[in-house]
């Protein structure tokens, strides 16, 4: 009886229902928690570009700080704010999937921007998410520019599968600190972006250069590429703000 086709069909059928039911139950039950974790992860990365997160221990504190100090908007390639998507649904910058947008042509992408404000609700820095390819898989970064739209205040990298100890170092504070105070424009006002060099020399470098990571030249090249292409995508907005902020001062 146990070897009959009917028994096998019955057995596998019951097994599929039981195991499938268990999985879908878990997935539904855990989904809100997972959503919160992903949300927290995004906001943590945005916050990490402008403040030191070690002062904020609990997830709720981080989320609170974020809500108090950040405003966000979505822009297009021309630097104009867009409020609704093609179907007329309101856009939320925090929920925009940068990876999905990366696959679209630059003029079709939606670009989220996060603005960090001081206590008086004046914009203090502008944070731009970027996305690109490292050596093995995707890499992404949040770059914070100060009010002059030229100086980098901080960066916060993430990656999927860069080699631990080599390319994965882009996510360490040691490497991220190298980007601080670098400039994206030269004296003539040309957009230069920031290059990550080959090799790790620790020498004093120019305003558009960042010391590389030994053994991770290709990851470094990916970083350079990503910064260059996304800065040019954000250029319209950056230049507009640069003019505005200058006239205020």
């Amino acid at each position, binding site marked *: 009886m*146990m*070897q009959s086709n009917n*028994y*096998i069909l019955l*057995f*596998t059928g019951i*097994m*599929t229902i039981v*195991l499938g039911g*268990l*999985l879908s139950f*878990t*997935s539904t039950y*855990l989904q809100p*928690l*997972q959503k919160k*974790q*992903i949300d*927290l*992860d995004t906001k943590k990365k945005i916050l990490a570009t402008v403040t030191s997160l070690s002062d904020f221990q609990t997830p709720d504190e981080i989320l609170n700080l974020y809500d108090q100090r950040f405003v966000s908007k979505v822009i297009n390639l021309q630097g104009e704010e867009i409020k609704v998507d093609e179907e007329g649904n309101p856009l939320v910058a925090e929920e925009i999937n940068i990876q999905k947008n990366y696959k679209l042509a630059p003029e079709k992408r939606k670009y989220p921007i996060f603005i960090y404000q001081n206590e008086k609700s004046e914009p203090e820095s502008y944070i731009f998410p970027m996305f690109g390819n490292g050596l093995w898989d995707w890499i992404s970064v949040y770059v914070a520019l100060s009010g002059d739209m030229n100086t980098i205040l901080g960066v916060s990298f993430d990656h999927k*599968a860069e*080699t*631990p*100890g*080599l390319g994965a170092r882009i996510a360490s504070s040691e490497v991220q600190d190298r980007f601080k105070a670098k400039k994206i424009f030269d004296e003539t006002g040309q957009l230069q972006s920031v290059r990550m060099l080959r090799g790790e020399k620790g020498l004093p470098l120019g305003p558009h250069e960042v010391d590389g990571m*030994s*053994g991770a030249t290709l990851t470094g090249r990916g970083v350079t590429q990503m910064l260059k292409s996304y800065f040019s995508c954000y250029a319209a907005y950056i230049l507009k703000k640069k003019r505005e902020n200058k006239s205020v001062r």
Partner: protein
Amino acid sequence: MSETATLVAPPKVREALLSRRRRGIVKDPLNEDNPITVQVLGICSALAVTVKLEPTLVMGIAVIFVIVFSNLIISLVRNLVPTRVRIIVQLSVIATLVTLVSEVLKAYYYDMYKVLGAFVGLIITNCIVMGRLEAFALANRPYESILDGVGSGLGYAWVILLVAFFRELLGSGSVFGWKVFHAAGWESFPANGLMVDSIGAFLVLGFIIWVQRAQNGYVEN
């Protein structure tokens, strides 16, 4: 009549909860029959996740959980499973448990999920788990199967933890993220790329196997 019959029948000897034989089930895979160093199974994950101790520990716990529960479940249904589809049944049970682990990690320990994500999924293909189901759980009672799962899981865990200890210490100069050499006053300890690469894992694993075989005289035949 029936009463006398039961009286005559020899009293059933209950095996102690942790009898010699049962202790053997747990102890053998720890050393003499270790899944990694002796059976040479589950090597890919032993290489992939052992760069740092913390993910290795989580991976070890995840594998122990998956082996113990898949062993238990398969052992419970061992008399119902049709022989012709037993491999599929084993795989579905393992895959379900692994997905559970990965979902729980994602909900409660997101940072670790990002590090281990792909590797947790790959527990499904870890030969140790399926090997135990096929070799043990299908033919043994639930309690023994749990013991066997604990033994094999721990046997896997201690080896990868040892590999990770040396790789993190020599590769990144830290233990569980705590900078050892920094604390000892050697601030300029260079990161060792060889240990961070998978080659480092092969080397450390080779040394462990060497030491172990020198000690217990195991010879491959």
